[in-house]
């Protein structure tokens, strides 16, 4: 029970950790690649009927 209380406290009072450059890079690449592939493959599929 005390462990759970400690976790509650931790979640409620955790200090904000700023985003590191590597995290920003990860988010950017992941999102960029996902959106790029989505648009590219969707258009490619519409035009050429790939699948």
């Amino acid at each position, binding site marked *: 029970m005390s*462990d759970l209380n400690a976790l509650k406290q931790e979640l*409620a009072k955790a200090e904000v950790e700023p*985003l*590191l450059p*590597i995290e920003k890079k990860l988010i950017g690449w*992941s*999102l960029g690649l*996902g959106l790029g592939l989505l648009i590219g493959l*969707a258009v490619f599929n519409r035009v050429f009927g790939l*699948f």
Partner: protein
Amino acid sequence: MTDTAAVARGAQLELSEDWLAVIIGIAIFALSLVGAAGPDLLGWVVTTAVWTDPGKALAPFSKAYAALGGFGSLVVTYAALLAVLGAAAVALKIDIRRFAVAFTVVFLLAYGSWIVGSQANLAVVTPADFKKFGLSWSLKLTNEGGYVVALVLGLVIANFFPRFGDWLSAAIRPELYIKIAIVIIGASLAVTAVGKLNLATSLLWRGVVAIIEAYLIYWAVVYFVARKWFGFSREWAAPLASGISICGVSAAIATGGAIRARPVVPVLVSSLVVIFAVVEVLILPLLAETFLSHEPLVAGAWLGLAVKTDGAALAAGGITDALILARAASEGVNYQPGWILGTTATVKVFIDIFIGVWTFILGYIWTNHIDRLPGSARARPIEIWQRFPKFIVGFLLTFVVGLAIALSIDAASAPRFTAAVAESNVFRVIFFILTFFSIGVLSNFRRLWEQGLGKLAAVYFVSLFGFVIWVGLLISWLFFAGVKPPLAS
């Protein structure tokens, strides 16, 4: 034992559970195959028909075992499952006596729910069946509505009789049950696919491209929301992003391991995943039936992308398959069954495969850039395999073997092979039922609230209902719109 502790125990034993699921699933498939060429070894397994007279609800799968009767086949099925799963419990170092007692009750309640769900006033859909059973009304849940009955019964136990739920905990193992079901389903998908190989191949490719984009987009956005808007630390945000974005419990646990988070972090995230999966299963199939009945495979892919945890996603796919087919039938269109569920399963399996790759990438970044310690080991490629969900190996094996047999068998023997696969599929349904009941029993809402997970739940709610579900729908629409299941001959 708390629901959280139950998930934690599952996490510790994940690898063992994976291989046990492979062994049990393949054994069921192999024994059913014997029936195609020789003696029917599994024909005693119990099946349930839609009923108005309870005495006619149950029957053994094969006529060769008709002498057993419905109740006899239920008892034999229970005894066989108890023996096999009891051996698995021993392998997992679970107290066998506790497991046997708890499993007996779990089986009775879960299968009882399935029987209740097959009652005609709950299940009947088509005008022909209304006439056949002499009914004036029905909830039209189809016989797959039994999953919902099992889930609701589990929820009632978890939230109103939590001590009873704790007492059942030794046999509440949704991850093991669904992994066995996924191994078995491989052969069914192969048989479904073989008649329309071009369509199946097309769905496979669509599934691959859909999940890659979904994963990349979902993960980045949820991680950003958790870190920037809700102020979570990296240790909490990464498992949360993996759990919410696509893969649920397994992804949260694998990510927690990859970034060396404390064990409690993915465990608490997993508790949330299960709770939200329950909510999704109750809502999304009805939405899919209402709004996507003319795009059945969009519905199937959407559920694979939107519903977390393999069990919940596949059961939601199964319910949607039944609901949409029934609605289409009432409009005069008779689709072949299984294609919607097959699409959901395909998408989900690719997601599971992707977990290993993604957690390796996260492990590499964390060990080399974020938590870099002097002399600490770099992430190694072998870790992709170590983190790979092994039950997928069983799924691929039954799929490939099923496909190879279905493609090479002569026309005279084909019906026997199809019947053998259908026989193994009866076990898949039983493991689905056990999964659903177990998910319900693990979903104690009050306990979760008491654990102070309000902020985690807020991230989950905002991400899932504000973003994940709708982006999943968009991606499914882009890649599956206009593709229809074949018509039943």
